[in-house]
Structures are given as structure tokens and as C-alpha cells.
């Protein structure tokens, strides 16, 4: 009510100013007349009375001004007037204005784009109801950390006994896929298997049909699946009667019970086509640990309580399987788990881009400062006419905020564009990209940055311009050199600009060096001329002989193809497609089950896999077709890698030695080492070498795992040229089998470093931008100071200074500034680059070469920027210069 009254009366003044002015005039006149009348009554003569009253009341205009400034509308009026005036000033100096707007637009645009990523991925809540209560849950040995996968036994025990969660659920770890058949050409579609409470834990519901019902994951329940809206559209023609239709996944018919909305992607970063129910028969052992678990905490239940409960249930499972290790739990917010791989990189990007903005802001401050000395006479006039210093500063700040806001609007358009480009061409494997966009929070951020940077870059110039006596600048407005204070501010700004730019350049230098080293990593095999693909056998291949027979026939056909020099299959391929790890025990090590599990990358391969990839044999021999391994009585054989040989055999020849795999257990069968091969990267090019175990795919116990295999084919030809031949061979055995994920090895390697490449490019782009801005800044300031010093230079030349002396003087000025900036930049970089450490591969965060090289580049470019003004200074004609006024 009170606010409304103020609003209405303020608006009246704003829209009908003449009415308010008239009333005020009338009232003041009346006051005056009354006062005069009173004085006359008490005996003064009218003339005398008028004079006295006029003296007492003071200046009428200043009284009116006081009255006007009592209301809020006064502020708005002033602002409007300042904005109007500011726009006029901007129009009057288009070169200055467009340069500053451009710098600010680039800075704010890039900041907005990066912030929208940070907001969408890291800051915004997950798009599920009450998502704060969602947590990721993992089990691991004491001394480890992070979210690890768990096994069926642990999930079932936890799900039965827990009281802390409303719902708990698991899904299959790894990048899941299904072989889809029965709908046109067979193909592989992205999808995972999940437990019954998967959707109810998240609190999401399908656009059509239902999620899974409790108990649908019991061993005997019928197979059901939920599909994505996109799959429904692309594969089923948006059939309105899609519910209860059947699709065949990995050879088993599943009944469709629901369709999820297009924006639902959990848990993958790429869209999934299908979520199929996973049935949980009573487990025979504790491993394999292939499930990722999450849950929705009951309101008010803490993570600690839930963790204690899970620890207790894990302890009971350890009793149930006495050979398995003791496991403890870790619980983290689900969002944190989803974004764990990108959060550091994103925050560093945000830091880097805010440095760019800072440099842009410093640049504009410099430009404004140069103009401030030009505008001193105008401002001196205002001060002389009675404007307060605060008023002048306010007006100048309004102008600079106006500049930054125009820059911000242009920047917002840039951000829209670059974000679109990023979503289209950037690394698609970033989680939560579907939640990224320019929304209210991002706009608020942009607005705050606009106003903030406007005030920051406007403040120093505004203070400088409104400084000092009223008299002096009016007299000396023309032809004088800039004040000592202004020059010092200019220099300080340039030094900080150079330091900031160097900081970014060093950061990008480090990332580039790390990336080059990553690209140069020896993956352990020859990646050129290799074709890879995935083949998944449907359930109709149900017995071990069937699976063996299929691979044997298929590999024989492929190897007989013209242009194929070797072909092999494996459960995992380099550089980062590792399927499983397995604990192992070396003979003589003992069976302490609380010893930290020794994990090896383990994979079933065909004999020619090594030859196809070009993995070197170090000792012993490879597998051969003649190895007898298919029966239970046959001795088991393994090939290990060099790292395992070094770490576990104390320099002895491991060939002929024996190991066991699985949890430490004296009853496990022994496996004999027959060969040692070179290390191969299976967990990314930047991963340290791990122990690796190779077993024959046709070995007893491993064949059921071989239903889905990578095919690797070496060819002297262009790798893609053999793909049609591969498809023909496959179809000749079974026309329903898809050849999926067809990629060259070079492509797989490129894809594995896409994040690294992307952030290296991005930071380098930022650094380039920073360099450009810094150079423009140096150029502008040196040119400006040469222009200001024209008279002084003229005098020097007239007194006998040579052109060389003069240009040396100008270059010296630039050199001093650049050197100071570089020194500060180097010192701060020593401290700051530490935050990059987690992103650097075998590159020290104080890598000498990166530091020296970037400093040299910056110094060279800075001197180049000073060269033009130096030349101009050397050509000053003393006569013209001295007549300059």
C-alpha cells in the first residue's frame, strides 16, 4: 500500500513533470508572499521585507532541486538523462565505442557460453524431483575411494535390508548396447539393463505406458523393456499401440511397457534407446562386480546413516562368501558422481575465460582513460558549474555501464551461437549436456557481469577524469601531456594486462605440450591400417560349442578375404575399451583376503589378436589354434604383459609360472603363463601401464563371455575399404547379425582424447584472444603516449636527438612495461598452474619450455606492437610539433 502510493506519486512526476513543477512553483510563491506579508505586518517596508525573505529562502532553484531529489523518481530521471547523454557520447566517437564494445562482447559472450556449460552441468540441480536426496552408492576395499561397482549378492542383500532409502536401484556398468533384431536390418542400439526400481528411484515417469513394477526383476519374471521417444519414432513409427509390442534384444523377446521422454538420458551422456529389465537370479559368488548403484534417501536420513547400514549389509555378504574381501561403502550425491570427470576441467575453463574478460575490461579501461583526459575540459566545466564530484562520477559510470551493456547484448548473441556450435560439434560425451542452455540463471550471470565490468572499467577513468582542481584543466585542456597520475594508471593497466595474458598463454602452452605428449604415447601396438567392429551373438547361440564354432568359422572367412593380413577377436580393445578387470593371485603369494586386490585387465582373445594389433612378443609364445583348452580337464593357459611380469615375478622368467584369478581362494584352478607380450593401453592413452591377462576365448569357462567381441582386422589397404567384405562374410553365416561400432583404430584413438583435444583448443583459443587484446592494449597506450608527447619529442629532435634516440625511447617504454608484466605473469604462473596438474600428462606444471617460449612470444609481439608508434615518433617534424597548439 505504502509502496503503491510512492510508486503512483513518483510516476505522476515522471509522466506529467509540468504539473508537479507548477504546483511546486505555486507553493513556493505562496510561501514567499506569506513571509513578506508577515514581515510587513511586523513593521518592515515592503521592499525591505522582500529582500530579507529572498535572503532567508536562498536560491529558489536549489530549494526546488532539494524537493525533487526527495522522491525515487529523481533517481530514474537522472539515470535516463545520463543514459541519453551517454548514448550521445558513444555516437560521437564510433571508433572508440565499437572497439570497446567488441572487446567486451567477446569477453562477455565467451563467459556466458562457458558459464552456461558450468551452470547446466555442475550447478543446476538434476532434472528429477527432490534431486538432492539422490545419491550414488559404491562398495570398495578399505583404503580405496570413489564410487566402485558392486555385485548382485551385495545389491540383493542391501535392497532387502536397507531402511534409509525410499528406493534403491542398479544398472549395468559400462557403455551398454543391445543387438536389435526383427525390425529391418539387424543393428546395435545403445541401452542398458536396470533393476525394477530404476525409474521410481529417479522419480521420472514415461510419456506413455509405465516404468518397471516392483518384482519385475525377479528371476522368473517375463522380460520387459522401456524405450526412448526417439527409438519409438525412428524404429516403430510412433506406433500409438506400441505398448505390449515385442522387440528382440540380444536375441530375447522383450515386451515394451513404456516410452521415456526424449530429454531423459540417465545414466549415459549420450541418449539411450532402451532400458531393459535385468533379472537377478541368486548369485553363485560375490563377483563379478558389474553394477552401479544409486538410491533416493528418505527425508531427513543422512548419508552417514545410510553408509553405516550399507557397511553392515556388506559385512553380512562377506560372511556369506568367506573368500571375498571385506568391502566398505561410499555414498556421494548423484550429481557429483555424474559430473566427476568434467568438473575440474569446466571450472578451469571458467577461470581461463574470466581472465580473458578481465583483460578485455582492462583494455576498455585504458581506452576510457585516454578519453578521460580528452574530456577533462568538459568535466571541468561541469564541476565549475556546481556539479558534485559524485554526480560526475555517477554520470561517467552510467556511460561505461551503457558501453558494457551494449557489449553484453552483442556478447549474448555470440554466446547463443557458440553454444549451439559447441552442442553440435563439441565433445558429445560430456554428461548432462541436455541440461545446458541459456536460461534465467545464465542471463542473471551475464547481467551481473555486464554491470560489474562496466563499473570496474569505468571507475579508474571516472576517478581520474573528475580529479583535481576546477581551474587547472580548464586552462590547460589543450596540448598538455597527460597527468602523471593518468600515465601511471595507464602503465599499471598495461602491466596487469600483459601479466594476465601471459598466465593464460602459459596455461595453454602446458596443455598443448601435454596433449602432444599424449598423442605421442606408444599405445603398445601399431594403430594404423586397423579396422575394428563389434559383433554380439544373440541368445540363440546358447551353448559353448555353438559360440566357438561361430567365431572359428567367421575368423577363417575373414582371414581368407583378399586384403586382410590378420584378424582377431577380443573382449577389450585399446585405447580405452576395457570390459573387465579381475583380481589374481601369483603362486606362493598366500591368500590374505584383506590384502588390497591385485587387479589385472583381463580379456579373452583369439590367437591372431596379437598379430592383428601388432603387439610384440617378449618371451614364450602366443596362443595357437592347437592349444587344447576347451574341456574342463584341460590345463588353463594365460599370456601376461610386461608390467605384470616386472611387478610380480622379481626379475625371474614368468613363463611356466602359475597364477589363479578371481577372489583369493586356494580352490581356484591354476593357470600357467605361456608367454609375455608388450604393454598395451586399455584404459586410455594417459593411464599408467597395468597388469594385463590374456586368455584364449575358447577356453573352458570363458566361452560364455565371448558372446560379444571386438573384431580387429589388419589390412594393407585403406581400412574402410574392407568393411563391405566383412559384412558379406558375416551375413553368409547369419543374416540377422549386425556388424556394429565400425571404426578404424585411428578413429578410436582420436575419440579417446576428444576431451583433452577440446580443452586444449579452447584454452589455446582463449590465450590467443588474450594475446590479441593485450597487444591491442599496448599498441593503443604507446600510440597514445607518443601522440601526447609530440611536443616533447619535437623539442628533443630540435635539440639534436636523432630518430634512433626517439624510437629507442618509445620502444624502451614498451619494453619496460612488457618486461614488468611478464615478470609478474611468470611469478603468478608458478603458483597458479598447479591447478592444471590433474589435466597434464607427463608434463610438469612448471615446464620450463612452456614458460620460456610463451614469454618470448609475448615479448616479441609486444615489441612489434610498439614498433609502429616508435616509427611514428621518429618521424616527428619538430617545426610541426612545436606549432602543434
Amino acid at each position, binding site marked *: 500500500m505504502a509502496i503503491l502510493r510512492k510508486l503512483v506519486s513518483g510516476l505522476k512526476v515522471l509522466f506529467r513533470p509540468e504539473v508537479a513543477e507548477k504546483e511546486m512553483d505555486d507553493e513556493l510563491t505562496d*510561501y514567499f508572499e*506569506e513571509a513578506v506579508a508577515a514581515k510587513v505586518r511586523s513593521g518592515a517596508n515592503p521592499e525591505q521585507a522582500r529582500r530579507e525573505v529572498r535572503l532567508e529562502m536562498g536560491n529558489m532553484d536549489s530549494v526546488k532541486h532539494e524537493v525533487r531529489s526527495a522522491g525515487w523518481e529523481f533517481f530514474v530521471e537522472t539515470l535516463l538523462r545520463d543514459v541519453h547523454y551517454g548514448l550521445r557520447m558513444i555516437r560521437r566517437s564510433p571508433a572508440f565505442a565499437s572497439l570497446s564494445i567488441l572487446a567486451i562482447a567477446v569477453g562477455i559472450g565467451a563467459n556466458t557460453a562457458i558459464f552456461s556449460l558450468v551452470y547446466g552441468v555442475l550447478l543446476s540441480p538434476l532434472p528429477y524431483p527432490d534431486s538432492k536426496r539422490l545419491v550414488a552408492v559404491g562398495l570398495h576395499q578399505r583404503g580405496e575411494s570413489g564410487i566402485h561397482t558392486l555385485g548382485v549378492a551385495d545389491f540383493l542383500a542391501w535392497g532387502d535390508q536397507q531402511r534409509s532409502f525410499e528406493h534403491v536401484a542398479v544398472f549395468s556398468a559400462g557403455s551398454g548396447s543391445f543387438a536389435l533384431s526383427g525390425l529391418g536390418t539387424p543393428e546395435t542400439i545403445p541401452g542398458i539393463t536396470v533393476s525394477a526400481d530404476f525409474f521410481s528411484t529417479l522419480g521420472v515417469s514415461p510419456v506413455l505406458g509405465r516404468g518397471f513394477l516392483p518384482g519385475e526383476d525377479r528371476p522368473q519374471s517375463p522380460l520387459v523393456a522401456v524405450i526412448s521417444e526417439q527409438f519409438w519414432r525412428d524404429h516403430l513409427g510412433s506406433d500409438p499401440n506400441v505398448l505390449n509390442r515385442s522387440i528382440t534384444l540380444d536375441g530375447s523377446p522383450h515386451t515394451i511397457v513404456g516410452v521415456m521422454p526424449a530429454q531423459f538420458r540417465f545414466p549415459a551422456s549420450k541418449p539411450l534407446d532402451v532400458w531393459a529389465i535385468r533379472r537377478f537370479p541368486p548369485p553363485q559368488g560375490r563377483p563379478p562386480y558389474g553394477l552401479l548403484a544409486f538410491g533416493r534417501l528418505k527425508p531427513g536420513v543422512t548419508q552417514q546413516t545410510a553408509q553405516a547400514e550399507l557397511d553392515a549389509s556388506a559385512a553380512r555378504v562377506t560372511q556369506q562368501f568367506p573368500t571375498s574381501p571385506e568391502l566398505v561403502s561410499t555414498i556421494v550425491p548423484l550429481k557429483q558422481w555424474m559430473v566427476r570427470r568434467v568438473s575440474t576441467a569446466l571450472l578451469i575453463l571458467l577461470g581461463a575465460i574470466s581472465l580473458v574478460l578481465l583483460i578485455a575490461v582492462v583494455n576498455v579501461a585504458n581506452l576510457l582513460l585516454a578519453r578521460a583526459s580528452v574530456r577533462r575540459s568538459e568535466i571541468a566545466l561541469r564541476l565549475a558549474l556546481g556539479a558534485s564530484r559524485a554526480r560526475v562520477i555517477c554520470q561517467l559510470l552510467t556511460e561505461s555501464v551503457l558501453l558494457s551493456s551494449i557489449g553484453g547484448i552483442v556478447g549474448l548473441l555470440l554466446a547463443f551461437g557458440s553454444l549451439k556450435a559447441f552442442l553440435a560439434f563439441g565433445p558429445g560425451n560430456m554428461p548432462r549436456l541436455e541440461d545446458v542452455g541459456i536460461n534465467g540463471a545464465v542471463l542473471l550471470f551475464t547481467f551481473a557481469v555486464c554491470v560489474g565490468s562496466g563499473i570496474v572499467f569505468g571507475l579508474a577513468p571516472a576517478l581520474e577524469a573528475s580529479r583535481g582542481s576546477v581551474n587547472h584543466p580548464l586552462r590547460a585542456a589543450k596540448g598538455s601531456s597527460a597527468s602523471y597520475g593518468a600515465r601511471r594508471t595507464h602503465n599499471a593497466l598495461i602491466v596487469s594486462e600483459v601479466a594476465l595474458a601471459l598466465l593464460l598463454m602459459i596455461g595453454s602452452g602446458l596443455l598443448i605440450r601435454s596433449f602432444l605428449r599424449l598423442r605421442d604415447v606408444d599405445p603398445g601396438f601399431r594403430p594404423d591400417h586397423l579396422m575394428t567392429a563389434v559383433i554380439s551373438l544373440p541368445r540363440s547361440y546358447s551353448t559353448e560349442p555353438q559360440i566357438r564354432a561361430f567365431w572359428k568359422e567367421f575368423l577363417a572367412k575373414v582371414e581368407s578375404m583378399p586384403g586382410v593380413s590378420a584378424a582377431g577377436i577380443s573382449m577389450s580393445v585399446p585405447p580405452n575399451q576395457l570390459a573387465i578387470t579381475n583380481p589374481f593371485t601369483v603362486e606362493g603369494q598366500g591368500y590374505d583376503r584383506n590384502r588390497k586386490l591385485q587387479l589385472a585387465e583381463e580379456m579373452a582373445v583369439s590367437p591372431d589378436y596379437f598379430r592383428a594389433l601388432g603387439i610384440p612378443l617378449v618371451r614364450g609364445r602366443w596362443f595357437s589354434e592347437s592349444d587344447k583348452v576347451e574341456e574342463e580337464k584341460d590345463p588353463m593357459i594365460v599370456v601376461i604383459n610386461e608390467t605384470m611380469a616386472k611387478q610380480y615375478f622379481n626379475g625371474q622368467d614368468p613363463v611356466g609360472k602359475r597364477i589363479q584369478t578371481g577372489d583369493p581362494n586356494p580352490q581356484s584352478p591354476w593357470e600357467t603363463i605361456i608367454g609375455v607380450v608388450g604393454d598395451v593401453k586399455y584404459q586410455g592413452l594417459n593411464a599408467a601401464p597395468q597388469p594385463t591377462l590374456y586368455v584364449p576365448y575358447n577356453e573352458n569357462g570363458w566361452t560364455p563371455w565371448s558372446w560379444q567381441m571386438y573384431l580387429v582386422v589388419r589390412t594393407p589397404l585403406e581400412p574402410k575399404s574392407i568393411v563391405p567384405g566383412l559384412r558379406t562374410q558375416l551375413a553368409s553365416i547369419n543374416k540377422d547379425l549386425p556388424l556394429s561400432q565400425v571404426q578404424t583404430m585411428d578413429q578410436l584413438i582420436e575419440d579417446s582424447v576428444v576431451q583433452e583435444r577440446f580443452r586444449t583448443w579452447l584454452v589455446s583459443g582463449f590465450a590467443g584472444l588474450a594475446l590479441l587484446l593485450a597487444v591491442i592494449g599496448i599498441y593503443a597506450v604507446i600510440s597514445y603516449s607518443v601522440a601526447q608527447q609530440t611536443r616533447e619529442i619535437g623539442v628533443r629532435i630540435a635539440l639534436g636527438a636523432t630518430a634512433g634516440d626517439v624510437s629507442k625511447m618509445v620502444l624502451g617504454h614498451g619494453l619496460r612495461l612488457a618486461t614488468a608484466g611478464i615478470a609478474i605473469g611468470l611469478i603468478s604462473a608458478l603458483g597458479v598452474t598447479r591447478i592444471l596438474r590433474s589435466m597434464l600428462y607427463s608434463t610438469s606444471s612448471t615446464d620450463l619450455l612452456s614458460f620460456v617460449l610463451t614469454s618470448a612470444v609475448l615479448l616479441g609481439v609486444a615489441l612489434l606492437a610498439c614498433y609502429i608508434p616508435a616509427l611514428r615518433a621518429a618521424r616527428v617534424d619538430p617545426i610541426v610539433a612545436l606549432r602543434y597548439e
Partner: protein
Amino acid sequence: MPEKTAGLVQGTLDMLILKTLALEPMHGYGIALRIEQISRGVFQVNAGSLFPAFRRLERDGLVASEWRPTENNRHAKYYRLTELGKKKLKAETREWQTQIAAITRILEA
């Protein structure tokens, strides 16, 4: 001109105006004169602070105004106390007395 109202505690002018208007509606000069008379010349209110105070009080809904003829047959803007203003005056007076009593006690202690 020397500003004698400088001695006025911040916010007291508003209270004095409200108190003056509690007796009867008045126009601007009348209020200034009354404050001067009653304070026996201690407070001289000048137009530069009086009129902004009117605008403030009116915006806050403590006083209302209307134009009507004066005793000298001219038109003047008369201010009167609103219900809200009466309440405000009561509260301010009470607050003021408490403070004065406290300050006096401190000064005499």
C-alpha cells in the same frame, strides 16, 4: 545564510512538522513560523529543508494536502495530519521521550 537547523537531530524536523499539524491544518509558511515561535527562535526552519520534508511526509502518507483560500484571500497548499500520521506522531513522541529521559539520566549521572 547560516543554517540554524543544522542543530536539529536527523529526523526531528519531520516530528516537529507532524506535531505542529496535530493542532490544525496549516500551509508551509505557517508551519515554519509556528515551529520558530514555539521553539522561541531556537529552530529556524528554512525552505530548503521544509519542502523536501513535506514531499517525504506526503509520500509516506503521514500528511495530506489540499489547496484552499488563506485568511489573506490567496490560495495556499494546506497540509493536514492523516490517521497514519497521528499514529506515527504518537509513536515518535513516546520514542523521543524515552530517549531524552535516558540521555538526561546519563548526563546527570
